[in-house]
């Protein structure tokens, strides 16, 4: 693997991301922040939700924002670049193994996912004011969860980006992302589903559940949550599977 080639491709992605900074930020952050505002501010201030909901909500929003950012950061450019114009070809012809080009996309996507996740914390503080109660006593566990969530998001973007065409982007949102978010335990802890036993088992196939529960366990342990001892290994397993699927799809798409 040529490190020079790899880092130049990262530099290219960073350059393009910098150029599109504002639209990119809007694309990934607006929706989660609106959620924070409506559920965390409006609903709590008006008394429909308890004050504590602010803290419960924030890790879930963070997870959604990371997953959306990572998937979009990798999938959207890939879908365009593999179109008729084959924009990706200058990188496919660069002196580096084809798999590394996909890995580079994933690394760039992870960086964007982490940024999108981390800005939720100060934004939440600013928007919600008092009553946000985050706990940073387990920084390593938090970093581990954040990294595995980012890896899931970026690998998922790779797999989706190599599987669908430009005409199916809308479908990707309504068929894949919307159910994933609604049943992802972002707005409620997993334990809240105990009165729906079948649903509670079923949502365990949803990676976002582990992302939200993992962030909850490391940021707001005062609420019920799944243990990181479960969350981390499961997320790693999902990461491996999704990344492997994405890499093989990328290879197939890149060569004919």
């Amino acid at each position, binding site marked *: 693997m040529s490190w020079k080639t790899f880092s130049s491709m990262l530099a290219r992605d960073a*350059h393009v991301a910098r150029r599109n900074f504002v639209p990119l930020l809007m694309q990934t952050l607006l929706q989660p922040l609106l959620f924070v505002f409506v559920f965390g501010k409006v609903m709590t201030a008006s008394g429909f939700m308890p004050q504590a909901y602010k803290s419960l909500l924030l890790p879930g929003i963070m997870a959604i924002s990371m997953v959306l950012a990572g998937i979009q950061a990798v999938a959207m450019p890939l879908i365009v670049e593999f179109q008729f*114009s084959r924009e990706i070809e*200058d990188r496919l*012809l660069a*002196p580096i193994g084809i798999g590394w080009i996909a890995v580079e996309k994933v690394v760039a996507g992870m960086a964007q996912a982490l940024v999108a996740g981390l800005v939720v914390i100060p934004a939440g503080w600013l928007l919600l004011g008092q009553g946000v109660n985050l706990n940073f006593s387990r920084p390593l566990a938090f970093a581990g969860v954040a990294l595995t969530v980012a890896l899931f998001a970026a690998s998922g973007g790779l797999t989706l980006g190599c599987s669908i065409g430009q005409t199916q982007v809308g479908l990707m949102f309504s068929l894949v992302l919307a159910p994933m978010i609604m049943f992802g335990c972002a707005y409620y802890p997993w334990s809240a589903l105990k009165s729906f036993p079948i649903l509670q088992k079923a949502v365990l196939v949803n990676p976002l559940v582990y992302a939200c529960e993992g962030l909850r366990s490391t940021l707001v342990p005062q609420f019920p949550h799944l243990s990181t001892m479960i969350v981390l290994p499961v997320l790693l397993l999902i990461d491996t599977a999704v990344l492997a699927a994405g890499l093989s799809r990328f290879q197939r798409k*890149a060569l*004919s």
Partner: protein
Amino acid sequence: MGLGIRTQDLRKVYTSPPPAAAGAAAGFMFTAAKARGGRNSNKKKPEIVALDGVSLDVQPGQVFGLLGPNGAGKSTTVGVLTTRVRPTSGQAWIGNYDVWKDPVAVKRLIGVVQQRPNLDFALTAREILLFHGAYFGLPSRERTGRARELLEQFKLTDRADQMVRGFSGGMMQRLSIARAMMHDPQVLFLDEPSAGLDPQTKLLLWEIVRNYNRAGKTILLTTHNMEEADALCQRLAIIDHGHIIALGTPAELKASLPGGYLLRLRFSRTSPDLVGRLQALPGVREVKAVDGQAADLYADRGGSLVAEIVNTASAEGAELHDVHIAEPSLENLFLHHTGRSLRE
């Protein structure tokens, strides 16, 4: 010192339609897989035979042309040689590197211009060159200098810092070629480089190709334009339906046509006797008298006949006023080998 290109028995059969990475346009022949008995007939896949046993040997430092109509297999051959299309069987080498065993080493040696512009639309023209140089590990100062030179050479300096999205087809094509030369590759592949270029730009391109070749670089280009093949290539392969049907220098190929030369003669006067004696000259295939003063003479050779024609004419008391020698064209050659015109 350039590097050679070699392929042995390349075959490529597509089982799924549009071969996007081949950069190949429409025009492939779809042949439904032969139904062998009832057993196989239920899983008939459309098979597209793009290459059917292509063996080539391009010498280092040569400009080699692949000439053929749309869908002949030119782009697929380039695709296989540039690590973009995996052959169904057969082997390909750039220098001593097996393209499919060591693709990364091969990619370092080659520059590729695809048939369709495939520029990175998220960047400006200059950035495209700079990042391309960076992918190939050029140091920063060298990149900047080389990008400036190439933009100048391809007359793109005034648009260098604009996004390429708004470029015209010709500008994109020029930039694609500049990009392929950015890392100074030993072997340059040009897939239909002059398609869509205006005549002026085409001449600029030819000049650039010749200069690059003078620096000892090997160039493989595909074209369906006879004039271009004739003007640029030192050797040619004519390809049709995935087969090489003729191989040689443009002159050799043209000379391989029986009676390929056409000499249009104008005399002070002609006579049936003169026509009869011209007909008897060695190498002459056919003589057609035209309106009492002129004759069209088809022959295996061109210039070397002129002296004999002059002598024959003066022996008959006629004077040769004008000669026009038409070299056998590649167009005629393609027609001869395939029974079809190139433009069909």
